[in-house]
């Protein structure tokens, strides 16, 4: 669960900001000028195949969520439902609390994700600043430990954590998930923020220190305002991890009233037969916040890195 797209956007944005000039060079010199017509056809064909392969399952999800049942359960498979038959019935069904507690799952996921990412931002800001700016014995050992934890899969700790949660009487609580997720997002958050702080010129902070600010004042008045893009990125990264997590949610939660979206959708698939329209509608509704975050973040990160006056 430590892998996450958003951290990579962060990396990619940094790289792309550094190589914009190079890209222009690529565009000018290696673009359409010298390519033969056949090379161009081959290129666009390959591009089209890449896009189709990447997007086809998502297209199927969208189509299925708006196709009526008689289209879905009669051959051939529905890829282009007749326009007149397109229906919102599956969406109506999942948002109707009488038939399916989707809204409840959605709310639970929002609560867990927001608390997790809020805590992650606070803890990782402290730790990341400590990594980047302050010198003390054992710092590199702590950094290595954090990196090692980054490679962990949840399955390695699922048995002891379950026993601990039972022992603490935290079974079927959302707080058990918040604490667990917080720790699993921590390694990458620490690294992202640590790198971000390192990118802020030391001189800016030193100027504030000379002006008579204490170290703590400097952090709050100078460093943190300059680091907003990095802090937002960490918040959203943690949000996405908490939003998607399945393993611990499936073990710690017992009553349907507490389910988060991923286990909620699994629950839906187990309770109803032939509910593919509803399942795809719920899947899409679950994806929308994540895709929105991703789109926003990609833009935000590149802007933050190029216009922020901060060399990454």
């Amino acid at each position: 669960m430590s892998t996450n797209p958003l951290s990579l956007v962060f990396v990619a944005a940094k790289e792309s900001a550094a190589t914009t000039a190079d890209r222009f060079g690529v565009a000018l010199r290696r673009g359409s000028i010298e390519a033969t017509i056949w090379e161009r056809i081959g290129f666009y064909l390959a591009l089209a195949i890449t896009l189709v392969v990447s997007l086809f399952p998502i297209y199927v999800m969208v189509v299925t969520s708006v196709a009526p049942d008689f289209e879905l359960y009669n051959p051939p498979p529905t890829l282009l439902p007749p326009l007149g038959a397109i229906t919102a019935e599956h969406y109506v069904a999942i948002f109707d609390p009488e038939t399916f507690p989707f809204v409840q799952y959605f709310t639970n996921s929002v609560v867990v994700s927001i608390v997790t990412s809020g805590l992650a931002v606070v803890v990782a800001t402290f730790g990341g600043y400590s990594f980047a700016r302050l010198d003390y014995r054992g710092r590199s050992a702590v950094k290595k430990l954090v990196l090692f934890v980054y490679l962990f899969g949840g399955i390695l700790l699922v048995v002891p954590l379950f026993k601990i949660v039972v022992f603490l009487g935290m079974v079927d609580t959302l707080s058990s998930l918040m604490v667990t997720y917080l720790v699993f997002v921590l390694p990458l958050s620490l690294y992202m923020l640590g790198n971000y702080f390192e990118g802020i010129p030391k001189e800016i902070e030193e100027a504030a220190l000379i002006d008579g600010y204490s170290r703590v004042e400097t952090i709050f008045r100078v460093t943190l305002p300059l680091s907003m893009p990095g802090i937002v990125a960490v918040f959203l990264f943690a949000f996405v991890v908490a939003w998607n997590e399945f393993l611990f949610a499936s073990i710690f939660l017992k009553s349907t009233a507490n389910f988060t979206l991923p286990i909620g959708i699994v629950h839906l698939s187990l309770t109803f037969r032939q509910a593919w329209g509803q399942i795809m509608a719920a899947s899409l509704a679950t994806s929308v916040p994540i895709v929105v975050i991703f789109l926003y973040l990609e833009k935000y990160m590149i802007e933050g890195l190029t216009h922020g006056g901060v060399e990454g």
Partner: protein
Amino acid sequence: MSQNTLDRFDPRRIRSAYRGATIEQKEALLGVALVLPSLLLVATVIVYPLFFNVYLSLHRVPLQGAPIWNAGANFQWLLSNGEFWSSLWLTISFTLIAAVLSTVGGLAVTLLFRRAFPGRRLVRGLVLLPYVMPIVAIAFAWRWMFNPIYGVVPFVLGNLGFTELAQLSLLKSSKTALWTISLFEGWRYFPFAFLLIFARAQAIPNDVYEAAKIDGASKFAQFKDITLPELKYIVLTVLLLQIIWNFNRFADVWLISQEFEVLSVFTYETAFTTFRLGQAAAISVVLFLFLVVFVLLYVGVLMED
């Protein structure tokens, strides 16, 4: 705790020591104080459970009540269990096939994106979607596509004449699951490989290619002698990361097919379907040992360059 150590934690003493400290000491103290919450969290939720897991793996663990020491019985059970060995082989095959698929896919798309074209940023965003979408959504979309009765994949296979394949439940049958689920993982994670490799490829200075072109190097020679050596390190890193994560991957596999028994699924079922927690702990100890080996490998590769 002796009186002496108690004294050390006396707030008054800390405060007066803080006032008398040099700037370096104060900074060090602040550094430790700021990293402490992270450290405590990792210690209680990762490090302690890790040791607790080893303890559990040496006990018979009832759902309620205290664990009962049973020496190495759990490991004996594990090593003499055919299910474990077949699960281990399945995990290794799945891990490698999926890691190679996603890395090669990411490399191929990188080469495609080396060229500038209108709308490249938009297309890049779209190509990342398999990796960005929540796993539960993606897994159910694939399950629907592979549904033996209504799915589009068996339908197309049937029409192409693969009638035998079309009748199988491709994500569950032991004949095909390794390939279909590895394909799923490769598809899901190729954007991860693409992003990392692409970022590195963008950093190769263009002059190198110019020089090669002037010397008359073919496109293929440029790829073989410039692009590939420059990308070797990042490709290896991506491959190793994929291997590490695939080995412990649970949600993806479980959500797409409960019958694909890799070690993570084996652990989960042992622990939470049949409630043999001690034996499940023993499996995760084995998984952890593999992780340690992988990490040493990873460090070795990193150190080499």
